[in-house]
C-alpha cells in the first residue's frame, strides 16, 4: 500500500537531503532531450497542484508556443490544510531541482524560477541551500522567489503576474501562462511534487512509474491527512489507494466520524461511510464528480459540526478573494455571511435558498477558478450536510483543539 518513491531514503526528520547523498542514492540527473515529453505522456503523469492536468499536454503547449520558455517550480502551497509540498521541499529539495532541470533542458528554457511560499521557512531554507549546491548552469542562474502568503498566489497566472509586476493576483485569460506568460514567453508553472515525479520518471521511465498504482491509478501520490485522526501528516500512497486505507495509515479514525473533505478547500465533503471505498486517484474520483485537488484528506469528527466548519472555511475563502472580480469578491462574501448566519443564529429558509441560488450564480464568473472552487466546496457541504443545514441550532461550535478540519 505504501510504496515510497519521493519520500524514500533517509528519515524525513533528518531534514534536507544533501546533493552528494541524493546522487549516491539515485544517481545524477539523467541526460534527456525532447523525447522526455513522450515518456511523460506514456507515464500518464498528471499535475499535483490541484487541477490534475496531464503534464505532457502542458509541456507540448509550452514547446509549441514559442522559444525560450520559462519554467516555474510552484511551491507556493497556499492551501492551509496541505503540507505535502513543504514536506517534500524541506526534505527532498534535489528531487524538485532535478525535475525543474529536466523540464528546462527538455523545453530549452531561458530561465528557471523556484516559487516558494514565504511562510514555509524550512522549505525556503532547504531549497536555497540545495540550489547553492548545484553545478548545472540552468540551476546556477535560477531565481528563488517568495510567493506571498495568500491562497491565490499559487494560481499559475498569479505566479506569472508576481514575476512580471510583483503582484500575486490572477490575470484575465486568455492568454494562459503556458501559451504566453513571463515576458510573453510560454511559461510552464508546475507544482513541485509533479517535478519530483518527473525527476524519477526521467531516471527510470514510464513503465516504472506505472508499476505503482492500484485500481487503475498510475504512480504514487503525496497525501496530507488532516483533522480527526490520531496521527495527521503527509504520506506517500500508490494512486488508487482507498480513503479507508489512507486513514488507517494515520492510525485509523472514529467510525462515527461525520464526513471527509477530499481535495482541500476547493474539494468536496463526502459522507464518512460513502468515502471509505473511494480510490484516491484523479480519474477514479472524477467518476464520482470529485477531484484529488492538492491531495488533502480531512476528517471531521462525530463531535464536529459540518455547518460551522463550512462557515469557517467559506469565511476564509471569501477573505482570500483577490478582490478583482465582482462575482467572486461580493458573491463569496455574501455566501460566507449566509453560512455564518446559519451557523451562529440557526437555520432559516431564506438563507438556505440564497446559498443554493448564489452558488449557482457565482460559478464560472471569475478570471481564475477561485469562485468555482469555493462554490464546489459549498455545494458539497449543502449536499452532504443537508440535514444539518436545514435544522441547525443557534450555536457556533468550537472546534475540539487540533481536531477541526478548517
Amino acid at each position, binding site marked *: 500500500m505504501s510504496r515510497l518513491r519521493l519520500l524514500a531514503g533517509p528519515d524525513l526528520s533528518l531534514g534536507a537531503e544533501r546533493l552528494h547523498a541524493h546522487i549516491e542514492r539515485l544517481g545524477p540527473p539523467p541526460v534527456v532531450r525532447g523525447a522526455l515529453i513522450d515518456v511523460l505522456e506514456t507515464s500518464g503523469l498528471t499535475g499535483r497542484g490541484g487541477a490534475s492536468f496531464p503534464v505532457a499536454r502542458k509541456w507540448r503547449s509550452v514547446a509549441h508556443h514559442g522559444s525560450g520558455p520559462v519554467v516555474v517550480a510552484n511551491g507556493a502551497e497556499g492551501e492551509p490544510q496541505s503540507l505535502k509540498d513543504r514536506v517534500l521541499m524541506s526534505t527532498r529539495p534535489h528531487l524538485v531541482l532535478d525535475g525543474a532541470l529536466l523540464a528546462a533542458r527538455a523545453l530549452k528554457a531561458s530561465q528557471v524560477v523556484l516559487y516558494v511560499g514565504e511562510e514555509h521557512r524550512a522549505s525556503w531554507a532547504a531549497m536555497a541551500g540545495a540550489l547553492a549546491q548545484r553545478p548545472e548552469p540552468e540551476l546556477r542562474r535560477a531565481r528563488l522567489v517568495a510567493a506571498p502568503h495568500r491562497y491565490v498566489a499559487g494560481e499559475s497566472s498569479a505566479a506569472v503576474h508576481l514575476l512580471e509586476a510583483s503582484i500575486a493576483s490572477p*490575470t*484575465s485569460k486568455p492568454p494562459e501562462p503556458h501559451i504566453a506568460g513571463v515576458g510573453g514567453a510560454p511559461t510552464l508553472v508546475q507544482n513541485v511534487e509533479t517535478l519530483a515525479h518527473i525527476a524519477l520518471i526521467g531516471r527510470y521511465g514510464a513503465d516504472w512509474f506505472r508499476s505503482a498504482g492500484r485500481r487503475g491509478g498510475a504512480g504514487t501520490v503525496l497525501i496530507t491527512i488532516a483533522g480527526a485522526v490520531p496521527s495527521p501528516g503527509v504520506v506517500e500512497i500508490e494512486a488508487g489507494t482507498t480513503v479507508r486505507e489512507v486513514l488507517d495509515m494515520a492510525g485509523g479514525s472514529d467510525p462515527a466520524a461525520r464526513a471527509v473533505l477530499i481535495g482541500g478547500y476547493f474539494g468536496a465533503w463526502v459522507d464518512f461511510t460513502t468515502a471509505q471505498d473511494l480510490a484516491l486517484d484523479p480519474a477514479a474520483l472524477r467518476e464520482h464528480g470529485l477531484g484529488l485537488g492538492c491531495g488533502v484528506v480531512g476528517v471531521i469528527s462525530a463531535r464536529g459540526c459540518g455547518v460551522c466548519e463550512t462557515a469557517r472555511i467559506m469565511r476564509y475563502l471569501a477573505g482570500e478573494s483577490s478582490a*478583482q*472580480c*465582482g*462575482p*467572486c469578491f*461580493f*458573491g463569496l462574501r*455574501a455566501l460566507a455571511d449566509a453560512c455564518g448566519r446559519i451557523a451562529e443564529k440557526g437555520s432559516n429558509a431564506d438563507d438556505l435558498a440564497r446559498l443554493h441560488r*448564489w452558488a449557482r*450564480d*457565482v460559478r464560472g*464568473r*471569475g*478570471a481564475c477558478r477561485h469562485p468555482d472552487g469555493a462554490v464546489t466546496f459549498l455545494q458539497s457541504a449543502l449536499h452532504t450536510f443537508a440535514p444539518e443545514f436545514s435544522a441547525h441550532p443557534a450555536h457556533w461550535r468550537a472546534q475540539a483543539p487540533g481536531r477541526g478540519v478548517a
Partner: protein
Amino acid sequence: MSKHLEIAIDRIRCDGRGLCAELVPELIRLDDWGYPIIAAGPVPQHLISHAQKAVASCPVLALALRQAERRSRE
C-alpha cells in the same frame, strides 16, 4: 466567414455598471450585486446589433464580441 458570435467578458475590468443588461436584456441579466450574467452560447442573429451596442457602450471596455469557440476544434 461564420457569423457565430458570443459575448466575452473581462471579469477583472467589469465594474458592474449594468448598461449591458439594459441594452440587451435578452442575453444579459444582473446578479444580486449588479454584475452581468451572460447567457451561454452564440448570440442569435436578430440580437447581434444590440449586442454590438452593449459592447460599444461599456464604460470600462469589459465586453467583446468574438467568434464562438467551436467544440470540435482542438
